């Protein structure tokens, strides 16, 4: 799993972390699915420019947590403050936050009835009210960055998984988000395609993007993240710098998890 990521050699010169500007702050957040307490007392502060990798066993609530940040899931107690705006039921606030927060999904969620270019220009035109021509220029710029400008007029169904995920990243970037959320972006991909997606993500990190990634790509975490968070049973049980996290895990559950995913 980590072999492909070992080759990543990110340039850390621009990965600066702000001391004062907070991107996301989660305070004592709790969430239930019916009676099931999925997220328990989550506290997390992410500064601008941070690259955070969230890992943990399945069902530990890591996806749910990052989906709360752009209100795809609703939290029931505590506070979530994104870019200075608190998430409440206020639809205007939710819109504002979603405009600033990009998200990539495990299954890409591209719109199959639209071309790649239309997928990328849709939100800028309808949400940012950008003129069509300008939106297309922006879209082509980002499609070039993810190295698939030649696919612009094809439909998502005609692309490979790795290409689709890169389009999904480009689509989010077209909204010029301040924060990017990644929900297991490489889990649905063939091994051959994981690296092309990780390369794009490393490129984003190099440009100083604030990123929260739920991923099991430990190579990526080691090279790019400045903090790794380990979740279990709806709680954050450990967080540390990557080297420390991998070489000297403190929590028993973390040790077990790492031994299971690294030594096989």
């Amino acid at each position, binding site marked *: 799993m980590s072999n492909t990521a070992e080759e990543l050699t990110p340039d850390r010169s621009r990965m600066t972390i702000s001391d004062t500007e907070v991107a996301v702050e989660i305070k004592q957040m709790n969430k239930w699915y019916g009676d099931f307490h999925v997220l328990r007392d989550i506290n997390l502060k992410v500064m601008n420019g941070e690259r955070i990798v969230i890992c943990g066993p399945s069902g530990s609530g890591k996806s749910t947590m990052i989906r709360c940040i752009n209100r795809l899931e609703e939290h029931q107690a505590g506070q979530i403050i994104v870019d200075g705006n608190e998430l409440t039921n206020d639809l205007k606030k939710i819109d504002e936050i*979603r405009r600033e927060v990009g998200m990539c999904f495990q299954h890409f969620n591209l*719109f199959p009835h639209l071309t790649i270019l239309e997928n990328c220009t849709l939100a800028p035109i309808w949400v940012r009210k950008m003129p069509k021509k300008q939106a297309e220029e922006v879209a082509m710029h980002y499609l070039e960055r993810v190295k698939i400008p030649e696919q612009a007029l094809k*439909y998502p169904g005609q692309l490979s998984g790795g290409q689709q995920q890169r389009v999904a990243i480009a689509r989010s970037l077209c909204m010029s988000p301040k924060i990017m959320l990644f929900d297991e972006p490489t889990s649905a991909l063939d091994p051959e395609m994981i690296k092309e997606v990780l390369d794009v993500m490393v490129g984003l990190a190099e440009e100083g993007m604030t990123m929260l990634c739920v991923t099991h790509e430990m190579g990526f975490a080691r090279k790019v993240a400045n903090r790794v968070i380990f979740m279990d049973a709806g709680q954050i049980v450990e967080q540390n710098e990557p080297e420390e996290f991998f070489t000297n895990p403190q929590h028993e559950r973390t040790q077990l998890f790492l031994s299971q995913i690294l030594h096989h």
Partner: protein
Amino acid sequence: MANAEVFQVRTVEAPQLPAPVSTSGVIGWMRLNLFSSIGNTILTVVGILIAYSLLAPLIQFALIDAVWVGEDRTACLAQDGGHIGACWAYVGDYLPQFIYGRYPTEEIWRVNVVYALFALLLVPMMIPAVPFKGTNALLLLVVFPIVAYFLLTGLVIGDEEILPIVETAQWGGLLVTLVIAVTGITASLPLGVAFALGRRSKMPIIKFVSVVFIEFWRGVPLITVLFMSSVMLPLFLPEGVTFDKLLRVLVGVTLFSAAYMAEVVRGGLQAIPKGQYEGAMALGLRFWPMMYLIILPQALKLVIPGIVNTFIGLFKDTTLVLIVGMFDLLGQIQSSFSDPTWSTPVQGHTGYLFAALVFWVFCFSMSRYSIFIENKLHTGHKR
């Protein structure tokens, strides 16, 4: 050496060869589909025999023995007791009535203008390559109905009769069929979409109203709806307030098919994965843009067969207006049977055959067009 027989590793790339003749071309197709086994060969022969025994008499009646020209019934009577074919001369003589009903002869040009305008606007709308779809849709869906309304019913400004009033009771034939079908089709789709969205809404009142509407209209037969609208409704209305009978039928038919349409569309909405909603929401799209741009185009595309099914059903159900005293195409044809001028043993056969032919042409066109659109909208994501 023994290994070489078990394993094979290519050193030279294998060439791509054309498929064997027996599996391609006409002979290949026939061998595969018609004569692939003894059982299938027997079925093929039996099938051909059945088709022949059904089609041959029809062709004999409708084409070979048919009478194409004539002044009255004598032309369609068998002089020497031989075979009698379809009396197309009668259909030809009655054609204006079948198309316009009892619409005044000197005003028929107005109906023709409406037909022509409709065709002129519909055809470019249906061909995907023709540009200006927005303007075209505006003309077809907003301007045309208004123009058609005044052309068909008449226009009076002040005391001046610019277009003489023609009561809807004088309308008939294909005109009534098309007015009901086209209005029903264009109004029931958006209504159905609205009720489908309403039924899936999280807002309890909207959901409740939609469920009640759909279940009510699906629960009553169309005949009841038509009867109620023409017989019962006037009893509930205050004295002096009347609605045109055709208008009442239009409303009834539209609401009736809207309920069916709503369930068809709801099926499509349910087939859209949650990820599509999440992808749209994560990009900052609000509910209506998300529905309009992402969800509905995909959902409606999925249920095109169901939508067209409802359209075809509606088109054929227009014949039921006969029971409230309106004459659609079928009703008009039936009413012509009482005319002694063309009274022959084949009059009924010919009339019904003509009705079947017209209905079939309309419904089959809708069916073929829907298949064309399905292929057109296919964007390669179906595997």
